[in-house]
């Protein structure tokens, strides 16, 4: 390492790359303009008539959350708080209570997600050890009040 003598030679080498980039500058610009022009001339809409026409979300699209149920219809969530711990927006509020069923200890008494703070990153889904929470592809979730944007347990389970 100490007698590494090539270092001073590297400078001119990088300097030579600049003219090459300059030379390549004109062509992509013309290509881009041609592309734009062809679309203008073709006169086809590239947007969709949104409320009337709906696009199928791409696979893995992260929209509105839901809480899943197990085969007996009980919530899968065990109130471990891992989703709320992982959540970078701190928008999941959980209060645990003892589960009435023998096969688990806890369940959420309260499970609120503040959809206005959520950044739809999907960390909650990844953190969950029980596969109890997921982000559905539902993206059109307007509401008339802020209160409606706090999804509680019942709402999350019904989705």
């Amino acid at each position, binding site marked *: 390492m100490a007698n590494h003598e090539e270092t001073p030679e590297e400078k001119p080498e990088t300097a030579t790359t600049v003219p090459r980039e300059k030379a390549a500058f004109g062509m992509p610009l013309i290509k881009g303009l041609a592309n734009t022009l062809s679309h203008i001339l073709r006169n086809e809409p590239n947007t969709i008539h949104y409320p009337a026409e709906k696009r199928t979300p791409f696979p893995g699209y992260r929209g509105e959350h839901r809480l899943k149920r197990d085969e007996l219809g009980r919530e899968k969530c*065990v*109130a*471990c*708080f*891992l989703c709320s*711990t992982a959540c970078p927006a701190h928008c999941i509020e959980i209060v*645990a*209570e*003892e589960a009435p069923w023998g096969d*688990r*200890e*806890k369940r959420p008494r309260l499970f609120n997600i503040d959809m206005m703070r959520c950044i739809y990153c999907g960390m909650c889904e990844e953190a969950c*050890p*029980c596969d109890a929470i997921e982000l559905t592809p539902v993206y059109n979730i307007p509401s008339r009040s802020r209160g409606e944007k706090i999804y509680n347990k019942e709402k999350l389970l019904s989705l």
Partner: protein
Amino acid sequence: MSDSNSTVRWTLNGTEVENEAGMTIMEAAKVHGVDIPQFCYHPGLSIAGNCRICMVESNRSPKPVISCSERIAEGLEIKTQSEVAVDARNSVMEFQLINHPLDCPVCDKAGECVLQDHSYEHGPDRSRFVEDKNIRHTKELGPTIDIWGNRCIVCTRCVRFCDEISGTGELCVVERGDRSVVDVFPGVPIDNSLAGNTVDICPVGALISSDFKYEARVWNMDKTSSVCGGCSRGCNVEVETLDGFVKRLTPRENLDVNDWWMCDHGRYGWRHLYADSRLEGAQHDGQAVSPTGTSGALHQLLSSSSSTAFLVDPFMTCEELHLVRSIANSLGGSTIAGWLPAAGTEENFPGGFKISADKHPNRKGAEHVLGGDLFTTSADQLKSALSNGSIDTLVAFVGGDGFEGAGGEWNDLISKAGKRIVFATQQGSWCEGADLVIPATAPLEKEGVWVNEDDRAQRTRSCRSLTSNHFPSELVVLQELQVHMEQRNRPLSAAGIFRELSEASDAFSGHSHSSLGDSGSPLSQRPAAMSSEGGQS
């Protein structure tokens, strides 16, 4: 090796080091910054040497040795990171986990679990165990303690605690081999005044306090280093809160006061903070007073008074008492007396832990600030003055958990004063008909210094419970009163008031909040660098 020389030269990870003779390898290594993992070892308990996680390689033994019980010796060579040592730890971890349920997501210990930490640091990342795991009992061991047997690693810390520290011996290990688990004898639940400590020292989530069960995940809570106000021992505690609600109290190590322990009375004694009868706003003749208007109302009442007496309580901090003294002095000719809550019973335990009979934290401090006859002669004088009606205005402090007020006799006497100003934590007969009722902070909500029965000054810090966020503390109200009385320009922090106190009083001279630090100091032991430290507030 056997000469009277008390230091021993030995080699730790290739470096020659020196330690006092008689230390264990684990203790000596810690001095040199090498932490060796441990499950069964606890500095407050006897050495059991049963978990084997602390194994290290030694030049004196063909097999690795356990560093928690092996002592250092001249010429001993210990390696904690050699292949043998790492492999030994790895195998112990794998062994500990074969029957462990790994239910960390629903385990209340998760986040402060020694097994989790060691598994992360020293354990293999997968298990080769394909058989079914053992199922052991999950049940109540006593009114406050539940056991999740599956999680128990049979370190016997809890068993040794009950044998050696509380001396009650309720717990024992039943069954053998991989079925061993901690249990109690039928009909003998674990129900002693120190039982809660077993939950703290359990390295895993096997022992769970039924009070804290499912209440919060430990990493979400805020911690405040404070002092318990339950008795005049002044155990150092950590108050853990979630969104302004106290969730649990745990002991904080202080070898001069409470070692690693605290009693259950103090541990579970915080619910009064959220009692329905808790006062949250000031009232002037039954009308609500705004938090900012409290001191004005107080000033108005005091300035029209011909003779004023102050009745203080032993829950007040030295700073609050100092403010009362200077206010009383400037009013001229005021009496100050104190009331004491009913005495409890003293309890002593074989492990050296003591629960004091004085059920209040600051009698000593109050006597230092306001005179040794505060609770005796002065109290008697005030009693007779109140009963013959010669007190025009009484300012009474009714703090503590506050359910009993100042005790039967005082509660009656308080109502005999012409005008009454009551600082109280709870509503009750002592507030009825008072001219001004001001909400008071309870223990765990106070900022300041308490002096325990051994004359040790310790800082108690406010856990900022949601309740105490609704009103200014006495420390603020009393200082605002001084501002109204033109005695002070602006309110100071508790540290600033303590500085005034240490300048005014011999007992406290030389001490400051920063010199008392987290663990406090005996009042007789003055810090060396007093002048430089007194400067910060």
